[in-house]
C-alpha cells in the first residue's frame, strides 16, 4: 500500500545527479518525500519537523559524487539520523535492585499490557532465570484479573490473587510484601488501561507507583498508534517517572512511527517489542530495524532472524555444505527448499520484508501461486529416489510416468526440470564466486524488479 521511501526518493533525487553537493535548494523535494514517509508512518508532526530540520542541517554540504546515486547518499543520511534519534542500541531492563524488583506497567486501554506482563515474565524466566510474581491491579475491566491468572498458568509463573473489591494500591503493596517473604526476584504489576486525561485514574496509578516504588515503570503502547502517541506519551511521562517503553503488535504491517514520536518526546528508551500472540513473542527492541521499517525500506535483519528460526538448521547446513563442495543440487534439495519456503509463509511474506519490495509483494501475490509450489512438490513426490538424486536420468518415458503419477502434463514436468537445472547452475556459481556474483547474475538477467537495482546496498 505504501510505496517505500527509497522507491519514491529514487525518482525525486534523480535530478540531483550531476550536482556536486546537497544544498537547501536541491534537496527540497527529497525532504518533502521524507516528510510524507514519516507522516504516513504515523510519526508525530512536531517530531517530523524537528527531524526534517536535523536532516537538512546534516545533509547540507554533504558531497554527492556524480558517479554515486545521490539518492543513496541522501537516504543514508536519513537512515543515520533516524537511528540516532531512535536511540543507538537496545537497552535492557535494569532489575539490579534489592529483590524483589518491581516492574509497573502503564498504558491506554487495549495497548496490550496484560499480555505483555505474561510475555515479560516468560522472557525473564528463560533469559535471565528470574522468578516473577504476577499481579493484576485492574479491578475495572471485566475478567482482567482472570486473564492474567490464566496467562500465569500458561507460562507456569506464580500469580498473586486479587479481587475487584480491593483497592489497586493495596493489591500492589500486598503482592510486593508476599514476594519479599517468598524470595521472588521480580514482581510484575499489571494495571488497568487508562486515559491520560482521566485525572482520577492517573492519580490512582501515581499512588500505586508511590506504594511499590518500581525500579522499572514501563509505558506500553500499540505500534499502530497515530499522532495521538505524542499526547499520551507526554502525559504519562509527566505523571509517572517512566523508565522505558514497550511497543506492541509489531507483527502487523504498521510502520510504527509512534516509536520515534515517543522516544523523541519522552526521551525514554524503547526496551521491548511484542511481535505475536504467543507468550514467547517478545523481542528486545532494535532501533535500527524500526528505523528501516519507518522508512519503508524493509527489515532485512528481522527477515534473516525469521528465516533462521523457521528453517531447519540441519537441512540448511547440509545444503550449504553440498553447495560449497560444488556438488549437485538435486530434486531432494529443491523439494526441501519449497517446503521451507512454505514454512515461512510463502513468497509474498518473504518479499514483504525485503527493501524496496513491499509494493512488489502485493503485485506478486496474484502471480506467485502457492498452489503452484505445492504442485511442484507433487511432481517431485512422484519421482523415484534415484530420479531425485540423479535428475539427468529423467528422460521421455520417466517423464510420462512422473506426469501420470502426479496427475499433471509432461510439460509441467519439463518446466520443473528446467527450473532445477537453472538452480543447479546458480548454486554452482555460488560455490565458486559467492553471493555477490550470483546477485549480479540475477540482475544481469533481469531477474530482479527495477526498484531493487536502484535501492540495493542502502547501507544496511
Amino acid at each position, binding site marked *: *500500500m505504501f510505496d517505500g521511501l527509497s522507491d519514491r526518493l529514487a525518482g525525486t533525487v534523480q535530478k540531483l545527479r550531476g550536482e556536486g553537493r546537497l544544498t537547501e535548494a536541491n534537496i*527540497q*523535494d527529497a*525532504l*518533502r518525500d521524507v516528510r*510524507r514517509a514519516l*507522516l*504516513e*508512518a*504515523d510519526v*508525530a*508532526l512536531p517530531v517530523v*519537523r524537528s527531524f*526534517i*530540520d536535523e536532516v*537538512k542541517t546534516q545533509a547540507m554540504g554533504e558531497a554527492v559524487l556524480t558517479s554515486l546515486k545521490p539518492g543513496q547518499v541522501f537516504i543514508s543520511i536519513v537512515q543515520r539520523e533516524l537511528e540516532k534519534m531512535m536511540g543507538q542500541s537496545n537497552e535492557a531492563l535494569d532489575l539490579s535492585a534489592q529483590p524483589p524488583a518491581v516492574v509497573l506497567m502503564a498504558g*491506554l*486501554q*487495549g*495497548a*496490550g499490557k496484560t499480555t505483555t506482563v505474561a510475555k515479560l515474565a516468560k522472557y525473564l524466566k528463560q533469559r535471565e532465570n528470574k522468578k516473577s510474581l504476577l499481579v493484576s491491579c485492574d479491578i*475495572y*475491566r*471485566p*475478567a*482482567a484479573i*482472570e*486473564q*492474567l*491468572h*490464566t*496467562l500465569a498458568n*500458561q507460562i507456569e509463573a506464580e500469580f498473586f490473587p486479587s479481587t475487584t473489591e480491593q483497592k489497586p494500591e493495596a493489591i500492589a503493596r500486598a503482592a510486593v510484601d508476599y514476594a519479599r517473604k517468598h524470595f521472588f526476584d521480580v514482581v510484575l504489576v499489571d494495571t488497568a488501561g487508562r*486515559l*491520560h*486525561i482521566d485525572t482520577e485514574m492517573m492519580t490512582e496509578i501515581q499512588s500505586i507507583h508511590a506504594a511499590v516504588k518500581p525500579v522499572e515503570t514501563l509505558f506500553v503502547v*500499540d505500534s*499502530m*498508534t*497515530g*499522532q*495521538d*502517541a505524542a*499526547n*499520551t506519551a507526554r502525559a504519562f511521562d509527566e505523571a509517572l517517572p517512566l523508565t522505558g517503553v514497550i511497543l506492541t*503488535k509489531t*507483527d*502487523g*504491517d*504498521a*510502520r510504527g*512511527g*509512534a516509536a520515534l514520536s515517543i522516544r523523541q518526546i519522552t526521551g525514554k528508551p524503547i526496551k521491548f517489542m511484542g511481535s505475536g*500472540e504467543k507468550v514467547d513473542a517478545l523481542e528486545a527492541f532494535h532501533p535500527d530495524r524500526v528505523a528501516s521499517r519507518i522508512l519503508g525500506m524493509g527489515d532485512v535483519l528481522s527477515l534473516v532472524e525469521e528465516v533462521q528460526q523457521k528453517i531447519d538448521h540441519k537441512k540448511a547446513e547440509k545444503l550449504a555444505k553440498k553447495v560449497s563442495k560444488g556438488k549437485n543440487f538435486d530434486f531432494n534439495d529443491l523439494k526441501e527448499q519449497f517446503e521451507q519456503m512454505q514454512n515461512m*509463509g510463502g513468497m509474498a511474506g518473504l518479499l514483504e520484508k525485503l527493501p524496496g519490495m513491499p509494493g512488489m509483494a502485493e503485485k506478486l501475490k496474484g502471480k506467485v501461486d502457492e498452489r503452484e509450489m505445492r504442485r511442484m512438490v507433487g511432481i517431485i513426490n512422484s519421482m523415484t529416489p534415484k530420479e531425485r538424486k540423479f535428475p539427468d536420468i529423467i528422460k521421455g518415458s520417466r517423464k510420462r510416468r512422473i506426469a501420470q503419477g502426479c496427475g499433471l502434463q509432461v510439460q509441467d514436468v519439463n518446466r520443473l526440470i528446467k527450473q532445477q537445472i537453472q538452480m543447479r547452475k546458480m548454486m554452482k556459481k555460488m560455490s565458486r564466486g559467492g553471493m555477490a556474483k550470483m546477485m549480479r547474475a540475477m540482475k544481469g538477467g533481469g531477474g530482479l524488479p527495477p526498484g531493487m537495482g536502484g535501492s540495493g546496498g542502502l547501507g544496511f
Partner: protein
Amino acid sequence: MFSFIKRKSRKVDSSTTPANTRSASRQEDHNTGSVQSSASASESKPVGLSSSLAKTRRGFADSMADFILGKKSINAAMIDDLETRLLSADVGMDATSTIIDALHNNLSRKAINNEAALHHTLAEVMKLILQPCEQALILDENTRPFVILVVGINGTGKTTSIGKLANFFKQQGKSVLLAAGDTFRAAAVEQLQEWGKRNAVPVVAQGTGADPASVIFDAVESASSKKIDVVIADTAGRLHTQDNLMEELKKIKRVLAKIDPNAPHETLLVMDAGFGQNALHQAEQFHHSIGLTGLAVTKLDGTAKGGILFSIAETLKLPVRFIGVGEGINDLRPFHADEFVEALLE
C-alpha cells in the same frame, strides 16, 4: 524554515494541477456542487456527545479557537496551519490534501474573507466526505435472529463494544444473545459473560480453545429456537496480516451461511480512534477478506481524533455505525458526521 519549503512546494503543485487532474480535484468539483445545500442543516448538535467529548477536544479546541478567532484575515499561512491541524488529527496526507484542495476551491469561489466563514467552509467540506457514511444500523424486522459479527485487531474494544451494543438493543426492546467467539485470548469468554450478566442477556460459550465457528453456529441455532432478535458474536482480535486468522473469519461466515444464507447480517469492524494511517490498511484487508458492512470507532473519549476515518470513508465508503465515547455501558452512540466533524474542529 520548514514551512518555507512547504509553501514553495505548494506553488509548484498549484502550477501543475491544471495539467494533471488528480483524483483529489475531481472529488472537490463533485463536492462543491452540494456544499451549499447542506450548509444550513448542520447546527443541531445533541448535547450528550458534546459533554462526553469535552475533554477530548480541549487541546484541539483551544488551539483551533486561537487559530480561528485570533487572526484577522485569511492568508496562506493560515491554510498551512489548518493543514498541520488536520495532519495532527491523523487525517493523513492524502485526505488532508483533498480537504485543503476543496477548501481552496471554495475559498476562491465564495471569496471568503473572515475566519468564521473559513471555519464553516472547512467543516462543510469535511462533513461532505463523512456524510455518506452516516448510516445507522437498522435491524431487519423480518430477520430473526439478526446476526452481528464483530471483528477487529487486538485491543480495539470489541468485547466492550459488544457489551454496550447489547445494552443499546435491549433499550430498543429487542432480545439479545451474545456468542463468545473469542476462544483464543485468556479470559475473553469470562469477560463477555460478565457483560452478559450486566445486561441480563444469555451468553453462549464453549470455553477457551473451542472452534469459534462452532460456538457462533450454536449461538445462532439457540437464538433462532428461542426466537431471539439479535445475536452479537465476539471474535478474537487478529492482525489483518495473519492469513490463517483471516481464513478463520471466512470459515465463521461460511458456517453461518448454513443457517441463513444472509448471515451475518452485519459484519462490524471495531477500530481504535487512536490508530494512525495503518487503520486504512486494516479496514481494507478485513473488507477484502470477509466483506465488512459497518464500522465502529472506539475510544473517542481520549485525545485521539480518529481522523483516519476520512481516508476510510473515501476509499471504502463503508457505513460508520457507532462511536465509543467511554467505558460506561451507555457510552456507545450512533455515528453522526456533523457531530464528529464539529467535535474534531470545535
